[in-house]
């Protein structure tokens, strides 16, 4: 399979991607299509065998939900590629945070529903019945088939998730990161469902509902975390790393670069995450009258730090605005 011929240049808006990122984007798209195909088969398989196990039902809903991040990634990465225009002067990068919010809100809502549903079963002490299948002259407990289905749906996403994670870092794509996390967590869902079914098998009717509750609670947790992170980006919070663990190291790097030229007295920066790209404003207090060419040279040197830095504006001021980052994080 040769793709060399149509080595199409990939870009996010007006920002052309370096080779590493363009490659990561192509691979991420391909992985998401593979995910969609794999998850779809898993959804069919689990639906066919789920019977009346609550944990299986919850795992099935989670499988359904895990279709959302790949879909929103494919849509948002395409939207983010559109060039800016006078109507969309900032480009379409916010598609990423919007997609992040949609995916997180879907997770949260379904998680809450599943917690209530499973909790109700526990309170009402519902004893889940699991019957049998008749297969080539053998009567087989349906629980075994459910366990086999959970092993199948557990393994693929774990591998896909681990392949997606480094790509999400390369692309600074939070939707892809959230998706990789959810995939990587799928083995926990599968394991909990298996424990629940084995619990039913040995006569612990409550094991299934407890397993379902645990899965659902972790889904709610992921949803809350995701909503918080997506909203921070939408509300112009300071840029953080792709996994939202810490302030993005580029913030410090920009500040250091801004203080570089001899004519800069004080400097402050505002960096926000627009989705893949970091919108960067730099305020400088010159010690002497400064040329426009110097300002532009400083902006260019900052832009060259990293492909993600975009719309770099250097603004000369007599006094730094309040609440800009003027000391390293």
């Amino acid at each position, binding site marked *: 399979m040769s793709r060399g011929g149509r080595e199409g240049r990939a870009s996010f808006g007006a920002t052309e991607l370096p080779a590493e990122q363009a490659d990561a984007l192509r691979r991420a798209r391909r992985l998401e299509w593979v995910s969609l195909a794999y998850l779809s088969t898993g959804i069919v398989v689990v639906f066919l065998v789920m019977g009346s196990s609550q944990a299986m039902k919850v795992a099935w809903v989670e499988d359904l939900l895990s279709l959302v991040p790949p879909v929103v990634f494919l849509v948002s990465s395409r939207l983010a590629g559109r060039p800016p225009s006078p109507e969309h002067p900032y480009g379409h990068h916010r598609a990423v945070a919007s997609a992040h919010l949609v995916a997180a809100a879907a997770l949260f809502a379904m998680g809450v529903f599943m917690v209530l549903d499973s909790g109700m079963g526990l309170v009402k002490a519902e004893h889940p019945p*699991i019957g049998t299948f008749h297969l080539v002259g053998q*009567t087989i407990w349906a629980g075994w088939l459910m366990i086999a289905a959970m092993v199948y749906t557990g393994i693929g996403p*774990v*591998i896909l998730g681990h392949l997606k994670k480094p790509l999400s870092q390369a692309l600074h794509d939070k939707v892809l990161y959230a998706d990789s996390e959810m995939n990587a967590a799928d083995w926990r869902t599968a394991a909990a469902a298996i424990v629940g079914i084995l619990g039913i098998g*040995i006569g612990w009717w409550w094991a299934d509902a407890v397993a379902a509750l645990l899965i659902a609670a972790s889904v709610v947790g992921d949803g809350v975390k995701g909503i918080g992170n997506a909203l921070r980006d939408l509300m112009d919070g300071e840029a953080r*790393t792709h996994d939202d663990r810490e302030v993005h190291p580029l913030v410090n790097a920009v500040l250091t670069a801004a203080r570089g030229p001899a004519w800069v007295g004080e400097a402050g920066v505002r960096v926000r995450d627009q989705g893949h790209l970091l919108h960067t404003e730099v305020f400088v207090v010159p010690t002497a009258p400064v040329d426009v060419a110097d300002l532009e040279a400083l902006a260019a040197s900052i832009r060259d730090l990293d492909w993600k830095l975009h719309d770099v504006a250097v603004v000369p001021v007599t006094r730094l605005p309040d609440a800009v980052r003027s000391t390293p994080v």
Partner: protein
Amino acid sequence: MVRGGGDGPPHDEYGVGVVALTRRLAAAALVGALVLTGCGSIPRDPDGTLERVRASGTLRAGASPGGGRVSVDRDRATGPEVDLVEDFAGALGAEVEWRPGGEEDLVAAMERGELDLIAGGLTDQSPWAGKVALTRPYATSEFDGGTVRHVLAVPLGENAMLFTLEEWLDRRAS
């Protein structure tokens, strides 16, 4: 050098990750296998229905007239489904203690733990599915101008009972 994230070099990470995961999955499979061999018979009944029937020699069955499968005449149940249940009880080394009644009464009694099985000409379309566990259809017949698929009912979640009954029905059919 400026890089996002605190995860270290990406390629290292996923190489190690997949290996560790495979190991973890293998361990889980091993534990699962040990649990299975250790526990002998799966599934079991949370309320011990099957064991009680075997130990006491009595299968407490509800009979509700319906579907041409069960008739009740002065507290005597007859019909093909009644014969079926008596055969099943025989296979467990038990006698049937019949309790005639309306479906709703019998389902309520089963929920209270007073019945081990209900024969009532039930079909797989039965609205009691959430309150009692229905077997897979064991026979079909023409009734009221359509094909109906006949099932029996056992207490909800008594999965050893359900398993044993379905297995017996499968063996009998073949």
